[in-house]
């Protein structure tokens, strides 16, 4: 099963998105939050993200990383580079929006979809009509 890592500038935001995605899948999908510089300071922390990636890689063969904005992508890339080389190809950064992407990715992961399909569905989530 694919695991998810949630990267956001706020620890509360990352934890909240994790909670929301986990609720959809009743804990069947391993989801790890890596938000904030620490629990109080807004920002992203590549070392914190690396720890979450390690935990995710210990539970799953592949990991999809959902991110908010700005430095989240740079820090996530840096975190991947801090992993042992042989593990790096098991991690993918998602183009999807954070909240919708995480929820859809969790649902897809729960039914055993692979990384490519999960990413495609998560990206598609951005185009789902919200206000109809």
């Amino acid at each position, binding site marked *: 099963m694919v695991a998810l890592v949630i990267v956001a500038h706020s620890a509360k935001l990352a934890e909240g998105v994790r909670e929301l995605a986990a609720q959809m899948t009743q804990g069947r999908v391993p989801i790890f939050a890596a938000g904030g510089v620490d629990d109080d*300071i807004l*920002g992203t922390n590549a070392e914190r993200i690396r720890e979450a990636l390690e935990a995710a890689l210990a539970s799953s063969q592949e990991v999809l990383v959902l991110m908010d904005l700005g*430095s989240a992508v740079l*820090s996530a890339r840096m975190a991947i580079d801090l992993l042992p080389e042989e593990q790096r190809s098991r991690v993918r950064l998602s183009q999807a929006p954070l909240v919708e992407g995480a929820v859809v990715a969790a649902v897809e992961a729960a039914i055993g979809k692979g990384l490519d399909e999960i990413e495609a569905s998560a990206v598609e989530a951005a185009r789902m009509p919200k206000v109809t």
Partner: protein
Amino acid sequence: MPLTQEAVRAWLQRCAAVLEENRDYLTQLDAAIGDADHGVNMDRGFKAAMTKLASLDTQDIGTVFKTVGMALVSTVGGAGGPLYGTFFLQLGVKTTNKQELTPQDWAEALEAAVNGVIARGQARPGDKTMVDALLPALEAYKAALQEGVPFSEALARSAAAAEEGMKATIPMVAKKGRASYLGERSAGHQDPGATSSYLILRAAAESWAGAT
């Protein structure tokens, strides 16, 4: 005399002091075109790095730089974290097992560091980023060495080129980072990342003014 490990530590301490002094200035620059945290972020990161260095017992300059890089990665918070983290980690890679640095060592280390920042951030010259200060500084330094000027003079020219590059970011339209959300409205403001890069390179020229 080549740079000793003490000289390297003196530079890093000067960086921490200069970034503390300029914390509000950098944050003001960032408030105009970004998320108003660059000064606070850099100050916090370098303070954390200094704490790590204080308890680091090593003769290896590479280890000193890598320690700073890792501290910045986990404490700066904004794009400066991975970018300056990469800058110092790359300096560390190129100076591994060195107890002193020659002018040529610094050329190689700075080149790796600047290339690391470019690879990490995917910014090109003219995008209104750190690269606009760092790349001219690297080129000026290498050109000065080619001319055979003393180490200290090459460092001074490098800092002067960084300053020019920093000022040249004022009319630029940002292509990277939060500032790029502003589009044309980012023109007319000096880039905070280019400014911190200049401050760091100026600190090197000042700390190492006696290097030959």
